[in-house]
């Protein structure tokens, strides 16, 4: 391999670290994959009984990455008009809804208490918080100027939730191991 090719390979390897893990999506229909990002989400908030996932991505929407650690999980969606990270979905163990207004839950939010805190309609900026046993899912919408607020309907269709107990059962069945946390048998430590 000549010098320029070696240089190009090194640059490509290094540039692979320049991006977020955009390729790994928490798909609602794939909860039993032992390597699923949903398991990592569940480990991020062991008390959470519900976990956010991607149901389907309407045309124009794109999963742009996630950040998951022991403080919680955050997912981002991009849209070709609403902009980069137009929607941010966070999973945490607690949340503050004191300034929000409670609204009826959607079809995917049965059993949860849902709050909305709209800040602006044009461009659309607002927060929707779903509170459930052991955690909250906080969805923040920050659409770009000129994008229609109706896109929020598409965004809500893209994001859904999965019950933690389904993952716990899947891991137990596939690996005979315990996904520790809510809905699982007690774990050591």
């Amino acid at each position, binding site marked *: 391999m000549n010098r320029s090719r070696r240089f190009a390979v*090194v*640059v490509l*390897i*290094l*540039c*692979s*670290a*320049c991006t977020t*893990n955009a*390729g*790994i999506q928490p798909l609602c229909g794939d909860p039993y994959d*032992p*390597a*699923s*990002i949903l*398991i*990592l989400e569940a*480990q991020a908030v*062991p008390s959470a009984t519900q976990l956010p996932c991607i149901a389907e991505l309407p045309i124009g929407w794109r999963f742009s990455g996630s*950040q*998951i*650690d*022991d403080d919680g999980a955050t997912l981002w969606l991009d849209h070709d008009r609403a902009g980069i990270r137009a929607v941010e979905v966070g999973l945490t163990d607690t949340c503050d809804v004191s300034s929000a207004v409670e609204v009826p839950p959607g079809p995917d939010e049965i059993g949860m208490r849902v709050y909305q805190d709209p800040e602006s309609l044009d461009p659309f900026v607002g927060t929707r918080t779903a509170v459930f046993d052991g955690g909250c899912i906080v969805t923040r919408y920050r659409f770009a100027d000129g994008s229609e607020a109706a896109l929020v309907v598409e965004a809500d269709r893209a994001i859904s939730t999965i019950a933690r107990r389904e993952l716990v059962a899947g*891991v137990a069945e*596939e*690996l*005979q*191991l*315990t*996904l*520790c946390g809510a809905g699982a048998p007690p*774990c*050591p*430590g």
Partner: protein
Amino acid sequence: MSEAITQPTPEPRHRLGAEVRRRPSGEAPPLPRQLGSTGKVWLAITAGFALLVVVVAVNETMQDGVELLDSAISRWFASWRTSSLTDVMEVLALLASRWVIRAIRWATIGTLIVFRRWRHLVVFIGAIIVEAALSYSLMNAIHRPRPLGVSIVGSWQEFAMPSRPLSGLAVTLIGVAYCLIPHGRIRDAAKWVIAGVLVTAAIARLYLGVDHATGALFGALLGVAVALTAFRWFAPNDVFPVTYRRGRAAHLDVGGARGEAIAKAIKDQLGYRVLEVKPVGLAGSGGSTPLRLRVRDELTGEEELVFAKLYAKNHVRADRWYKLGRTILYGKLEDETPFQTVRRFVEYEDYTLRLMEDLGLPVPEPYGVVEITPEREYMIVMEFFDGAVEIGEADIDDGVIDQGLKLIRAMWDAGLAHRDIKPANLMVQDGNLKLIDVFFVQVRPSPWRQAVDLGNMMLVLALRSDAERVYEHALRSFSPEEVAEAFAATRGIASPTQLRSMMKVSGRDLIADFQALAPHRPPMKIQRWSVRRVVLTLGVVLAAFIAFGLVVSNWAVFA
């Protein structure tokens, strides 16, 4: 009928010592190139482990088996959990925390900058970025969750395989060992300390349930392997030793294994026993490692001093960068084509020495080229001017002035230019002027180059005398117009750095003095613009931009 052609047996120009020995096929060279046994073992272990990871990644049965094994190990560690032990383990886990790793990295970078160890700095930063890129890519390719079956009681980020904190800690600590700690027992001891730190951090992370055993092992292996490979390839200890002595990076360490190899190589290839190796003239030399050797002919028992220059790949690289820099700064100055190999480097100097000796010029007699490591290190051995002093420290009489000017005249007549006329390359031995370091000699140079040689020689001679006297002597060998041409050409970077420094120290404007004495001639332009210069400049700017972009985009590993 043709006459029978009889040829005399050729006599070597310089008699070789006794017992010259040809290295048979298959025998190792005097200084074999080695990655080092520990480096090979680490690379083999890491490659084997990476292969195992790939196999496991595509085989679900093995995946489940590894998961169960890791879970069992995690549960065993968790079974030891107590409140006080958890507190201790949380502190120990800080060894692999972001802030500890960042602190070590910045302290190392700062130290390397203070000691101006630029190559180690670049390799250190490069190793960190490569490790971060590799571990990040592997993590996203494998996307393995955190340990199952235990409660996680420590801090973590993203997927678990490989363990990025342990990988980052390993590449950093090994980097510190190779950047800051001199080769030898202290570094060996440091490696054991590093192993201890890594094991401690790994145990703490296993106890806290944030890493799997296999993830921790893979992370540590990856970090160590990246650092070892980077430093052994790009800053090998024998070429770029970590020392805290003053000296130029271009000068190789001639002790230890290399010292033994030099002695063996000279014994086998030139037939002399080496009694002493002493670096000389290091201050005036950046392109090689100059040595004075005391040798003995085993057959006659005679001892003599010889001069040798050791060339290695880093000198070729330095020459390439130097010429690239000059091309960008000034354009093509007729001499900016770099050498591609060390062999060519040393062959060229041997050729120029022999050529100039053939012409009767006062250069050292070449004794031959010695191979130290094939294609990587060679040494050229030549006559040592015993008792000679640098012209800057010698008494300059009319005889020496005439010799210097006639030397330039002889080179002009032979179609040569030395191109590095400076005090460090002109020696005076018993009133006779000697010219050394003929590496930059050019055959059929441009007239500009020849004029610069004359200008620089006159400046060197005038440093220890005066411009009027040197000018008067110059007119015996050169016309006033030729002297005027010399000082129209000899400006700025056309003079070697050492000569410019000495002129500055003398406080005299010798160039103006000579220009006043010679007929008027407008200065020649040094800046030469060409397509090549523009392309090279743009290429360097682009490469710098990419390098800067890589550092910025990977800034998270430092900040």
